[in-house]
């Protein structure tokens, strides 16, 4: 059913459709509306779930950990400081392989105090062992949450998924969203029925102390599941397309001519704006394209190399910064190309849109022109980074 919804409400509908047993969440801007709406659904009998009104994000994730281990499908949502606060539990959840799904309204970290969009929060949680999927719009957010459970709960994966959606630009922006019918989702996503579960009739010990002789093997198994997820994410996206009728790129999306000379790589809602610029520049005879990363972890090295093959220059747009070096996506893309593409394109890093700074059409155009060698852009000495839209 087509509805006019903001991103948060679209997410809440996705949660209603996946029928979690337990929702545990703590309010934080910009995701609060998600859990308010879920509370509404429960209060009105549209969703039969237990909602734990927790006293912190740490508890939200701990409760999801416990609930999922006890065999209930668990959901939470958070953002920024909240994600940082629950980070300890993120590692437990992924390490013990309980398939929690979480939506993060991507928001910059304080201080200085801020509430606006960037990707620093989820980038900082990059190495917690969660699958990270970045969405471009609210429809994709809704569809991806449903897919996320199917990926996470796959017995070959058993890895939690973070669906990353931009603060305000998605969470607070209304647009038409097609909300699938409950029946269709029931057919797509079977009930959560894990092999390993806390059960008094079959006493298992989870997460036992592991000596050095064992720990590494568990990490390797975790990594193997991540690598398998590359295939599963694609499969699930296709399966969703077949069942629901809406297709999303599994790992990455290339937009623009196959033989583009320069390519910008980016994640999140900014990709929509970049597509507009790509169309415009293509129309003006410039061979430029966009590669949108949907799956950031696991990182789709092969797909990225394929998509960037033949490009002369690649600009990676980061809405985050690893202080003392460069943007995280940039370092990942660059590392992916080294030794895999010969000759490798030049890779430049553009960091912008931090703390909610709008990334304007003109700025994206400048990035493409800079990559084409047609426009100069200020770059700090001894740094890979070109800051976009900064007031010097």
């Amino acid at each position: 059913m087509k509805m006019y919804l903001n991103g948060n409400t679209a997410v809440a509908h996705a949660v209603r459709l996946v029928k979690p047993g337990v929702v545990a969440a703590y309010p934080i801007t910009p995701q609060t509306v998600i859990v308010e709406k879920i509370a509404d659904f429960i209060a009105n009998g549209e969703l039969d779930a237990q909602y734990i009104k927790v006293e912190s994000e740490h508890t939200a994730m701990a409760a999801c950990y416990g609930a999922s281990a006890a065999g209930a499908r668990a959901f939470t949502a958070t953002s920024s400081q909240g994600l940082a606060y629950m980070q300890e539990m993120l590692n437990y959840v992924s390490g013990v392989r309980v398939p929690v799904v979480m939506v993060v309204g991507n928001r910059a970290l304080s201080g200085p105090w801020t509430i606006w969009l960037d990707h620093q929060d989820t980038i900082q949680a990059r190495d917690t062992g969660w699958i990270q999927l970045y969405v471009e719009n609210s429809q994709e957010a809704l569809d991806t949450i449903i897919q996320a459970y199917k990926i996470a709960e796959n017995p070959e994966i058993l890895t939690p998924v973070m669906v990353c959606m931009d603060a305000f630009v998605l969470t607070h922006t209304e647009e038409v969203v097609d909300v699938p019918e409950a029946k269709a989702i029931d057919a797509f996503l079977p009930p959560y029925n894990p092999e390993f579960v806390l059960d008094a009739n079959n006493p298992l010990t989870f997460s036992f102390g592991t000596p050095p002789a064992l720990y590494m093997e568990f990490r390797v198994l975790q990594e193997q599941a991540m690598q398998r997820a590359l295939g599963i994410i694609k499969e699930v996206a296709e399966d969703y397309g077949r069942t629901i009728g809406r297709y999303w790129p599994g790992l990455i999306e290339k937009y623009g001519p196959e033989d583009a000379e320069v390519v910008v790589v980016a994640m999140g809602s900014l990709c929509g704006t970049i597509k507009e610029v790509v169309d415009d520049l293509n129309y003006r005879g410039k061979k430029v394209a966009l590669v949108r990363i949907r799956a950031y972890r696991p990182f789709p090295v092969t797909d990225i190399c394929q998509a960037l093959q033949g490009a002369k220059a690649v600009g990676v747009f980061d809405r985050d910064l690893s202080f003392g070096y460069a943007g995280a996506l940039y370092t990942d893309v660059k590392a992916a190309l080294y030794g895999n593409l010969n000759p490798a394109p030049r890779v430049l890093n553009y960091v912008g849109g931090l703390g909610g700074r709008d990334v304007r059409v003109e700025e994206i155009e400048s990035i493409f022109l800079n990559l084409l060698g047609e426009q100069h852009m200020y770059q700090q000495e001894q740094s890979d980074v070109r800051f976009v839209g900064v007031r010097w």
Partner: protein
Amino acid sequence: MNLMSARITGFPKIPVVPGGTVLVKTGGWRTMRPVIDPEKCNNCLQCWIYCPDGTIEKGAKTVMINYDYCKGCGICSEECSHGAITMLREMGDEK
């Protein structure tokens, strides 16, 4: 379902093992050994309820000690109000 054994044959998929997978006998920790005098023991079970390791077994007339797991802490001997449990040196003393 034995997900894991001392020799890892099939490594578990995720860090979960069956409860009660006890493969190391803690009796080897002992330097002192509690010895029960069946004549003095009246089966009051004080030693049983106070053993941190659950190594005292209920018997028909007296309790018995599971030396495979008894760590020799001596609480049983201390708590026995009948003087029925003596702590002897693990090596050397007459049993």
